């Protein structure tokens, strides 16, 4: 017997692909690379504009509408403005790392998009190719790796700024991203259980008859929460909220370096939305009524379905920002560690158990999944209520003396204070030390006015 103990079947070998992309013509690769790059930059510009308009509408105002039709060129104007700002490097900053940090943040953000499938095989100038920059057998792992690399940019930016608040902001951002990355990674396991592959195109193919949201409902729910936490977006944006620790890790950054961070954040948002679309919402496949039309999943049409789904998910991001108040830092760290991880682990085991019991007939397992999902959600509500009750019980203020109104003054002045002040700790100790001392240090109401 050779090898590591027993025969290891190559479980991560590439499944057969539809016309292979890994042998594209070189100019096709260049075209697709440029297309992805342009798409990401345009998507960012569009997202910034859309966010400002939609949040404005939710807050019953108009939002930018001056620069270009409907204010569409506002993001471009902002970008140009940033480029023309003065480029300041703080005196206390570590120059090399300070300049490198935005680059480290931006590059993985772009690269993560390489494996997202926009559509099936199409024909460009006679050559067949997938509407996907590249298709790795470990595509989802690649995306996870790229988002992990992006954390370096945040921490290094905060550390190299030479000031305590960016450092703390950067470390807090990083701690948050890292905590939600675990929840995200665990929800991927639920996807792999039904898809049987790490490759994004295989996962889309596995959703031909039923979308991932049905196969792995709890994973979808956890992923939805985790993706908001991972991208430092509302309601989890405490490390960089405007009213919080100034600007967080990018406080000391100006001009285009700041623009790169902004770009990286929005590209991350687009990437996780695209990943949700691919893993749970059927990717580029048309939804049910449209999928009855046999041409819906062929050619260039799937690009439209993909963009529509992506737009809906991005709208949900903006919707959350406009609607929900911000979580406190310890609250969302608790959510990430104490709720999302155990729920996810239990769900993975449940899904695996259900698949072992009956692999083929979907009716027998959809019902347990739904029941289990309902139980888990109900259980988390109950646990939350119980915990909040116990917290309140611990912090319940002791019933103190009633406030005494001040009848002497004709004006509506506030009450003078409690009828009897609680004794100072030092006087309690002194009183116990020498028993029977006078209560001279305890101020009663009469003393105040005498």
């Amino acid at each position, binding site marked *: 017997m*050779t090898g590591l*103990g027993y025969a290891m079947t190559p479980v991560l070998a590439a499944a057969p692909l539809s016309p292979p992309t890994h042998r594209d013509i070189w100019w096709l690769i260049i075209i697709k690379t440029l297309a992805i790059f342009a798409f990401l930059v345009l998507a960012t510009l569009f997202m910034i504009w859309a966010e400002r308009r939609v949040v404005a509408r939710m807050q019953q105002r108009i939002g930018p509408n001056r620069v270009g039709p409907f204010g569409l060129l506002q993001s471009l104007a902002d970008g140009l403005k940033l480029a023309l700002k003065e480029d300041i490097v703080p005196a206390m900053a570590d120059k090399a790392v300070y300049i490198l940090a935005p680059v480290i943040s931006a590059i993985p953000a772009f690269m993560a998009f390489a494996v997202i499938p926009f559509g099936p095989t199409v024909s460009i100038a006679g050559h067949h190719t997938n509407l996907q920059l590249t298709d790795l057998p470990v595509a989802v792992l690649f995306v996870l790796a790229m988002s992990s690399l992006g954390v370096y940019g945040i921490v290094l930016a905060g550390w190299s700024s030479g000031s305590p608040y960016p450092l703390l902001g950067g470390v807090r951002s990083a701690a948050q991203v890292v905590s939600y990355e675990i929840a995200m990674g665990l929800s991927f396991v639920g996807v792999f259980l039904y898809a049987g592959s790490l490759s994004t195109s295989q996962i889309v193919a596995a959703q031909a008859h039923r979308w991932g949201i049905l196969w792995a409902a709890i994973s979808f729910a956890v992923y939805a929460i985790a993706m908001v936490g991972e991208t430092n977006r509302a309601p989890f944006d405490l490390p960089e909220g405007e009213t919080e620790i100034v600007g967080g890790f990018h406080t000391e950054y100006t001009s285009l370096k700041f623009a790169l961070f902004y770009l990286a954040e929005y590209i991350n948002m687009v990437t996780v939305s695209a990943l949700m679309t691919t893993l749970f919402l059927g990717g580029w496949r048309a939804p049910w009524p449209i999928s009855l039309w046999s041409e819906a999943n062929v050619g260039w049409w799937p690009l439209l379905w993909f963009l529509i789904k992506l737009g809906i998910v991005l709208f949900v991001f903006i919707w959350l920002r406009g609607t929900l108040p911000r979580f406190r830092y310890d609250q969302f760290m608790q959510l990430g560690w104490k709720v999302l991880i155990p729920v996810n682990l239990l769900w993975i085991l449940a899904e695996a158990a259900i698949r072992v019991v009956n692999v083929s007939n979907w009716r027998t397992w959809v019902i347990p999944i739904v029941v289990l999902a309902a139980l888990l959600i109900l259980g988390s509500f109950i646990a939350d209520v119980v915990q909040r009750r116990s917290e309140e019980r611990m912090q319940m203020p002791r019933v103190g003396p009633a406030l005494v109104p001040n009848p002497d003054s004709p004006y509506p002045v506030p009450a003078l204070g409690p009828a009897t002040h609680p004794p100072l700790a030092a006087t309690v100790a002194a009183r116990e030390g020498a028993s029977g001392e006078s209560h001279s240090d305890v101020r009663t109401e009469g003393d105040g006015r005498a």
Partner: protein
Amino acid sequence: MRLLAAFHAAANPNAIPAPHIEYRAILPMLIVFGVACVGVLVEAFVPRVHRAVTQTVLALAGLVAALVAVVANTGLPRRLVVQSAVAADGPTLFIQGTILALSIGALLLIADRSIGADSDFVAQAADLPGTEQERASVRAGLRQTEVFPLAMFAVAGMMLFPAANDLVLAFVALEVLSLPLYLLAGMARRRRLLSQEAAVKYFLLGAFSSAFFVYGLALVYGYAKSVEYGDIATSLTSSDRGDSLVIVGLALIGISLLFKLSGVPFHWWTPDVYQGAPTPITAFMAAGTKVAAFGALLRVFFVAFGGLAWDWRPVVWGVAIATMVVGAILGVTQTDVKRLLAYSSIAHAGFILTAFAATTRASESSVLFYLVAYGFMNIGAFAIVMLVRDADGEANHLSRWVGLGRRSPLMAGIFALFLLAMAGLPPTSGLWAKVAVFQAAYQGGAGPLVIVGVLASAVTAYYYLRIIVLMFSQEPAVEGPTVVMPGALSAAAIALGVAVTIVLGVVPQTVLDLADKAVPFLR
């Protein structure tokens, strides 16, 4: 099971068959791992008041159960189990039994709270030394009871390390054995800075040695296309490629193993770590780690790399001579009794290495016997060191040990017994151990090593006897340390050490035969 049958009825051509695992053969290790995991749960859920007692009972019960399982396994046929990853042969059973017995002794020392004001372990390891928080923890009577599951994990790793039949599992066992010990070395209650320094030193050097192991593993895998010891041995005989890759790999693995058993020049951590660690942990390390490391060394070098014996034997000669010389000579100048015992353990490692230089069956069995004798005498010696205390805790400086024989003849007499055993004088087990080892070395053709060994023994005997003279011949200082009477648990550990030392000194034949029956290693 119907479900399994239904699954297989689908006739999946890609189905991965379940591996065959002989649970009974690995039951001792499973018991100890299970006890360790339950210990972690006890830490999480049992209220603090009951934690120490629960952990002690759980750990002791687990170790005893594992020992019973080892004894029950002696009837099983000798074979490779768990898809050839673990070797369930004679030496495995012998070494695992030894480790379990030594661990029971060490656990009795760890659990004892009656010596001194409280146990030897820190109140709360997260407190910075010298702060008000530390004082508050001590006042509150806290105790870091995680030492029990940590020690159990270390025991489990020690049991797996000599039993592993492939390098990857050996590496995993090495890490499982080492990481808890790094932590445990830093958890002394008194002289915390010294203890934390010892832990950091152990961790840094240990991490490097683990890295060497992995690097050597990779090179050997590149040569042999397999990490199993049997396959490596086969590839050594049949391959027509150059040797350089496997020799470098062997050297790196050898460095790592020599680090674990304090072979020169990888012994630098031993005196500092033995001195800084809490004394029960020093006893645990000195006994258990050495036994496990020697078991693994024998298996790796004899089974996997036996074909390269011409290449590694001269190096082992050099290392053995250097180890004995360093252990003997540097021990003479020591003034701290724990450091002195550390150098003496280096010297003992050197003595064992002399037998290791001769690859005969007698050498294997003599090494096993020496490990038994050495382990118990060390546990006993460190237990007595725990008892010599003054107002600040243990009094480890030799100058404070003057005249202890007059003050407390029983404990000093027992300590003298252990020192005589280490020196190799009759009627203790040390004598027969040294005789067996030197005889095996001589018969294997390592005559010069025996000469160096005898000379080194004489030097070590000098400083052992010097301590005995110090204890008995002079009057104790008036304000000197006292020898505290041990609690029940420590007394049991000391009694165990004394019993084994004397019994093996008077009637060694039983254990010698047992060791002889256990070898050879399964190839």
